[in-house]
């Protein structure tokens, strides 16, 4: 484990001002304005996409689509936009106790301030979680509390203005709902909850970003956020199977939309089409083949991730409903879920409540080990890491660890599985059995204190690449440390957004480190029946440790 000597850092480090930002704020926060410049905002949603989604949902959830320019001072909002927002806030206060409590209870102790990767990376004081919430609290106080109405600014209250709206748009889209602040808050105030409400309110007046809305639109219509049509999806996986055959000599033909399969497997669609997710998908394919599992993919429910959860409750529910709908249509017994972060936030904390009860399914039982997953008794959906850990524990997998010897691994806890699910040990247990060398990053950057990739909740878009690099810096820095100290060259994770965005983050900050899903390394280590005698490469056609003449094998 990491331990840094005090003298290594020097004593003077404490005294100097920050390198990240520098100047002391000269104005109070209510007096500074959000300024949009290219590179600090995501592009706005396309009107046609908003129009489509409006028709899908109950009236009012999305405001009328409009053309607007984020950098301008006129967003072309409806005349009564303030009323819409304030009424929307009222409605949400009545629907969510969490919002009321979080609006009322903060004492501004500052425990959360330096826990946010966006604050650490940008140094912008309004990125402190407490300030992010104050942006909304100030309006709440003005509209809904006596003190705020009477004392105004003295009580930290301010009316809803365009300036406030701009701030909301800027800072609710500079939060990845990672919940790290919530771990440290003495009242458990969860900025994710505030940000979700903030975004819902912005949607009421159709202030939104395309990178969230278009995936939502695609997921709803085509089944996956990429908008891949059914045949392309199938074709894609066929390509992956060809690669698998080339690498391992094993031919795999997975089934699609098959009625009567025992298990429906749902994974984030990035695993079907994006690197390095596709290698994780190859891992799944190998694992299921190894077990002879009776499972099917679905083209209709081909997206595990739920960009609806970055939009509003209604959209989240609408997208999530596909999982159960498809499970019921195909008549499977239970659902197995792939590696994903926010997908598991939704599945674990929302799914059963929103779209349950799933009476048509059975309590998940591993057909290989007979283990009944009691912890998923109601939702009937099991995480692939839980499933795999159970298999390894019962000795059901034939594994050759040394095939991953070219990888020195560190494990990145993805925010949602860590802080909204508590999935900490399963991936580590799997790692123990599939790689010889893995090292933990420093203690305050892993497990429930893990740092976000900086690009979650629909912020993984190219136009804010610099911002993402800053926001991901705390994470990258911890990786740098294990890279320097232990030669770590692989960062394993259980999240599709991580796989995509950490690749970019590592590419910039720690270029020697690759990102891969746990299941990719599981697949690579599996000794398959009828496989080639000599495995020359890993799943991404990379050279294995032995094949370079290391004579390890």
């Amino acid at each position, binding site marked *: 484990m990491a331990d840094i000597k005090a003298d290594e850092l020097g004593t003077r480090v404490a005294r*100097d001002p920050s390198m990240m*930002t520098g100047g002391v704020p000269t104005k109070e926060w209510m007096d500074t304005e959000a300024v949009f410049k290219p590179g600090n905002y995501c592009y706005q949603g396309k009107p046609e996409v908003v129009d489509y989604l409006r028709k899908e949902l109950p009236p009012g959830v999305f405001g009328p689509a409009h053309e607007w320019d984020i950098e301008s001072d006129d967003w072309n909002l409806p005349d009564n936009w303030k009323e819409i927002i304030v009424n929307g806030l009222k409605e949400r206060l009545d629907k969510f106790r969490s919002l009321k409590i979080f609006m009322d209870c903060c004492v501004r102790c500052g425990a959360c301030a*330096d826990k946010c990767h966006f604050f650490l990376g940008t140094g912008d004081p309004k990125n402190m979680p407490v300030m992010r919430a104050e942006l909304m609290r100030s309006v709440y106080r003005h509209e809904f509390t006596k003190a705020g109405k009477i004392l105004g600014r003295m009580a930290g209250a301010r009316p809803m203005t365009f300036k406030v709206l701009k701030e909301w748009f800027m800072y609710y889209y500079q939060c990845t709902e990672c919940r790290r602040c919530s771990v440290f808050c003495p009242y458990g105030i969860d900025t994710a909850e505030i940000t979700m409400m903030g975004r819902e309110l912005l949607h009421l007046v159709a202030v939104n970003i395309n990178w969230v809305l278009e995936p939502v639109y695609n997921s709803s219509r085509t089944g996956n956020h*990429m908008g891949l049509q059914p045949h392309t999806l199938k074709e894609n996986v066929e390509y992956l199977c060809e690669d698998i055959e080339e690498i391992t000599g094993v031919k795999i033909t997975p089934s699609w939309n098959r009625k009567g399969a025992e298990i429906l497997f749902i994974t984030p669609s990035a695993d079907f089409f*994006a690197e390095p997710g596709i290698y994780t998908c190859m891992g799944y394919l190998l694992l299921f083949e190894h077990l002879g599992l009776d499972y099917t993919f679905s083209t209709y429910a081909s997206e595990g991730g739920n960009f609806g959860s970055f939009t509003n409750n209604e959209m989240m529910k609408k997208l999530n409903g596909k999982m159960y709908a498809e499970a019921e249509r195909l008549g499977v017994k239970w659902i197995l879920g792939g590696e994903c972060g926010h997908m598991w936030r939704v599945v674990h904390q929302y799914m059963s409540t929103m779209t349950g009860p799933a009476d048509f399914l059975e309590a998940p039982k591993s057909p290989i080990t007979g283990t009944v997953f009691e912890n998923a008794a109601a939702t009937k959906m099991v995480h692939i890491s839980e499933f795999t850990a159970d298999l390894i524990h019962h000795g059901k997998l034939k594994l050759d660890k040394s095939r991953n010897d070219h990888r020195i691994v560190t494990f990145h806890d993805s925010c949602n599985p860590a802080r909204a699910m508590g999935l900490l040990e399963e991936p580590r247990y799997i790692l123990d059995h599939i790689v010889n060398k893995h090292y933990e990053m420093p203690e305050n950057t892993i497990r429930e204190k893990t740092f976000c990739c900086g690009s979650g909740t629909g912020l993984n878009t190219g136009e804010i690449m610099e911002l993402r690099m800053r926001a991901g810096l705390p994470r990258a820095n911890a990786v740098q440390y294990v890279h320097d100290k232990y030669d770590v060259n692989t960062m394993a994770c259980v999240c599709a957004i991580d796989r995509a965005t950490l*690749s*970019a983050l590592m590419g910039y900050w720690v270029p020697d480190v690759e990102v891969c899903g746990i299941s990719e390394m599981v697949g690579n280590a599996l000794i398959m029946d009828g496989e080639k005698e000599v495995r020359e490469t890993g799943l991404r056609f990379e050279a294995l440790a032995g094949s370079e003449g290391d004579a390890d094998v």
Partner: protein
Amino acid sequence: MILREALAENRVIIAEKWLDSILTSYHEDGARFFKKQKDRFANPLGYNARMGAERTVERLAAGEVSDLPPELVQFIKLRAVQTFKPSEAIGFMYELKQISAKVCGMDLMAANFSEWQAIEADIDKLALQAFDLFMADRELIYKIKLEEFKSGNAGTANGGCPSGAVLRKHNAEKIELKVIRDC
């Protein structure tokens, strides 16, 4: 070597003043929040910049200016993703001249003018390296954007973009074709 000795002697003060001057280049809304953050994981760049500044001055004093200390390299990486113009991002390197001159004292400097000229040339060398790094970092950003697009992670916004696997297949076929044709 009188001036270089003076630099070595005063390296802590020089580094400190240099850091102070770097800070003035930040936006006023930024805040001096990381003052107490010594932890390199909680304040990654504070650590890098401080260590980088000191080590740079050390190297200058020793006349070893063929490369920049790794901490400063990391720091420049951060400057490259903050909202600076290139001149703003790298300009701080030149401030090392004035600060060193002030700390060493004008008299000492005048008395050893040729040595000072050599030191100035060394600072220029360091600054140019910083500029190279800055440009390399910017190029890296564009490369990453491109990679992201190619890997299939960025296709969403335009809908229906071919997948990474399809692209790879497609590209591989094209290369094969090209190889065949070239033969």
